[in-house]
């Protein structure tokens, strides 16, 4: 379970997001909201990228007090991933696998399935935005997470890749019980059987059933 406790995120003096209490039991969540409503901010808070007030707990583990344990089980794929341009996909896959205690072979297979393995040893600076997005999705699946947060995962990539990524999500949900929070302006309900919606509106978030 992912639990928000008195979380507040400010940019300067501007309140971006306030979630007094919210409990997310395991499931497949569709994170909805207008542009600038705070969807990415919420994901980045859970992923440990943004500082904030309050706390977020994963099965009782606090991101503030047990950060390592928390992040071992929370993976994140950014909407617009940024990596050093001189690194290769190999460098990043090795880094993620080392820190998340995972085997490299699984990621290599995913890269092959998404048809970007040919560029495994190329500098990321030479990647197209679609290739970069595919790589970030593969990185988000590394290890043995309990939650995977995907920010607009299905934009930029080609149709075949969208189908494949949806298959991965469904498989990991049903076979491994991994929970997902997926932000998207499109529903994809025919491909992804969302259990609930997290609506971000007026600087706060609430759970709504479908």
């Amino acid at each position, binding site marked *: 379970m992912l639990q928000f406790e008195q979380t507040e995120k400010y940019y300067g003096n501007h309140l971006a997001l306030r979630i007094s209490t919210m409990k997310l039991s395991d499931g497949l969540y569709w994170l909805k909201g207008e542009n600038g409503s705070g969807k990415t901010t919420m994901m980045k808070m859970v992923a*440990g990228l943004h*500082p904030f007030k309050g706390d977020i707990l994963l099965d009782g583990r606090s991101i503030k007090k047990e950060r390592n344990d928390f*992040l071992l089980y929370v993976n994140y794929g950014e909407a617009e991933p940024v990596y050093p341009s*001189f*690194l290769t996909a190999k460098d990043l896959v090795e*880094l993620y696998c080392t*820190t*998340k205690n995972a085997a490299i072979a699984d990621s290599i297979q995913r890269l092959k399935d998404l048809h970007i393995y040919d560029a495994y040893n190329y500098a990321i600076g030479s990647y197209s935005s679609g290739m970069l997005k595919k790589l970030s999705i593969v990185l988000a699946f590394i290890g043995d997470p309990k939650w995977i947060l995907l920010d607009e995962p299905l934009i930029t990539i080609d149709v075949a890749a969208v189908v494949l990524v949806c298959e991965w999500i469904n498989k990991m949900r049903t076979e491994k019980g991994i929970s997902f929070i997926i932000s998207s302006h499109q529903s994809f309900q025919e491909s992804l059987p969302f259990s609930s919606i997290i609506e971000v509106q007026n600087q706060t978030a609430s759970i709504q059933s479908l």
Partner: protein
Amino acid sequence: MKIIAKILQSVLVNHFYKLNAGFFIFLFFALFGVVRGGQLIEFHLGLIQAILSGPLFLLIIICIWGLYTIKCINYITKRMMEPGLSFLTCLNRLPKKQVWAWMSFVHFEVYLPVLAYVAVIISVAIKAHQYQQAVLIIVSNLLFFIGAVSIYFKTLQAHSTATFLSNIRIPSLPFKKQYFLFPFYFIWAERKWMFLLTKLFTLVYLYGFIQFYEPYRYDIRPVLLSFLLIITAHSTLIYQIRDFENENLLFSRNLPIGILKRFFQCIGLYLVLLTPELLFIWKGYPLHFNLLDFSQIFLMVLSIPAFLHAILYTSIMNGDEYMKMVFAFIAVLFFLILYDLGILLFVFVLIFAFVFFYFHIYEFERANTVNTSEG
């Protein structure tokens, strides 16, 4: 016309000096701070005479001016290509001679530290009737100047840096990329001229210190003060490393890496960065330091850069604030080293560095966009 000068001064020249403040502080102390006040003129006259009388020495100095020119070119061309400065292309509407003149104005301002010293060297050469050397110095600097201005001019006209930058290739590092060395790879890939010039000046300084400074009794403090200068010269690189972390390594906050491990990785990075100086100083063993005191030098090289790195996690710290902080911190350390506190001083600096690191690393959030041009 005044407005053009004001804009060029503000967006190109002032930014160059701000970005390289650490480098210039180092140069200033290396040239004017290490000699006693009464001997300053004699020291510089001796240095200039050595430059003028030895062809090899003169050649080395000309090469250093050439490298400084490359540094200026690299900075100005990259800076002009930044999206925020694309408005500078409106200068192309002016007659070409005027554009050339404005580019000369820019280069004159960034090349001024060299020109000032060159003027003194030339007047000494003429006074000593060493006309051949004077002509060589004038011609080489004139060529550097014209070359730089023509590259600025072409960059502005074509709105592309490809003409200059594509001609200079430095090989990439052939080692496996360890996470803690990602910033070092960034420096090598994106800030190579800043890095190479910093290394050149610090190693030349160390060479001069070892060769020419003869202590009348054993004292570790001159070596420590020299390393204080060397670390100051690296302060701009440290700023660039933190900037790179904010821009390109944000994703790594999601990785389960412990805070202590991250701190050791930070220390390891600066150990690698300053390894050339740590190895080179052994030329001065045992005259300038003994084995026991090397531990002080070693700890200093780890602790001060780690501290400068860590204070850049405080959210109020921008480029200007950072340089003020560096200057104040170095000034305090200067006196504490003179007071001879021994290794304890650097143990405390390391502890402070860790405290800053521990409390701020995950609380830091970039408030506004900081420029990342190479200087």
